[in-house]
């Protein structure tokens, strides 16, 4: 079992969610986060001065998947989330030791 933590653009979130739904990937946890990459945020310039925006709003999607579903999800997020501009985000993949459904006590892949 694997967990995806995907940091994506706010505007990309809805299309990604819909595409995942179509492939049967429905359960997820979503949070509003702020973050930055190597560019240290964004620099806005105008006549009256400059302003560095250090952290930009993004959406974080956390999904736990069976191993054979992982690539499908990664492909969707990469394809829809990519605009080519700085700020598209990142995906982190990590192994999951255990999954438990609290209501029923199901464990493992059954509980995903």
């Amino acid at each position, binding site marked *: 079992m694997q967990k995806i933590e995907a940091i994506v653009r*706010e*505007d990309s979130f809805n299309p990604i969610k819909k595409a995942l739904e179509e492939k049967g990937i429905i359960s997820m946890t979503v949070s509003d986060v702020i973050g930055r990459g190597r560019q240290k945020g964004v620099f*806005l310039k105008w006549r009256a001065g400059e*302003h560095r*925006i250090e952290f930009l*709003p993004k959406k974080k999607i956390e999904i736990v998947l069976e191993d054979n579903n992982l690539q499908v999800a990664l492909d969707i997020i990469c394809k829809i989330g990519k605009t080519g501009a700085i700020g598209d985000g990142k995906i982190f993949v990590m192994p999951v030791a255990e999954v438990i459904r609290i209501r029923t006590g199901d464990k493992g892949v059954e509980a995903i």
Partner: protein
Amino acid sequence: MLINSGDNAWLLTSSALVMLMTPGLAFFYGGMVRRKNILSTIMMSFMTLGLIGVLWVLYGYSLCFGKDIGGIIGGLNYIGLNNVGQLPSSVYATTVPHLTFMAFQGMFAIITVALITGAVVERMKFSAILIFSIIWFTIVYCPIAHWIWGGGWLAKLGALDFAGGSVVHINAGVSALALAIVLGPRKGYKDGTNMTPQNIPFIVIGAGLLWFGWFGFNAGSALTSGGLASNAFVATNISAAAAALSWMLLNWFYHRPTVTGIATGAVAGLVAITPAAGYVKPIMGIPIGIGVSVICFYMMRLRNKTRIDESLDVWACHGMGGTWGALATGIFATVTVNSAGANGIIYGNLVLLGKQLLAIIVVWVYSFGMTWIVGKLIDKAIGLRVSETEESIGLDISQHGESA
């Protein structure tokens, strides 16, 4: 004429009440947008107090109420408040100092410009809305106010607009629609990104201030402190109450009785009674209020279906609410309430409704057309929209360097 202290006291108070409606609107709108744009939305409303507050006394009052030129526009005889002093005008609000009438009218001009901004939130450049406001105020608001209130051609024809159903609400509503179409939708709108209200308590504060201020808006438009003002006052409250109640019930029928809904319903009720408050029997506030909530409720759904991002439904509530109000005036008006008015359809007179319809069409066409043109011109000159990055970060930071 002699100054009537009751009239002046009420009209000055009403001016203050209407002034409060603009910050009220700022909260009403502000509560409906995403957190990152709340300050920008508030700013777009609040700045009108400064901008239009100054332009009004420089030349706006004169263009609206100055010496009539061909029924189209007022002259420059009141430029810089020339000849607007402590003595009453011989034409307008003859029992109060001219300054009072001018101040009262100024508050209307201010809020009309602020109303339009609801359509363009979360993506319009601040500099662009400033320039738009100056031009729109000068070539759309002032002529229309002159035609209907300043002794212009629509007034001479006999169209009735007690407190601004056409001058303020249809005008702003239809202009809002035009500007929203020229501007384009918010990024993410077409993808269904969540853009629901993020500060609903502010919406209620706003609606409360608007309802309170509207007593000045409508009852103050009697320009006197006698029975007519009372008529308008009560009609206003009844319409707001009826509309709030019926919107709440409609909302419940569809999903749940939402707080956003009842606040919107109350505002719609206030919009609809605006042209009618001093011409109809107060109890007619009930059918007028129920009618407007049904109409505006479905107009909002319709607008949503068209996928035009007229973000805060200024057209659905003010444009269509004002249209219904103007028609309702043609239906329910009676000279027993106001001898300076006329009788409506239920008293056997079809002519008034015809005149109302004419005024409605004129305002629709002129406001929409001129706003479209001005919007396109400003877009060509400096661009209407912020950049994509600025829109993502939010206008509070990108336009105002502030965060709430």
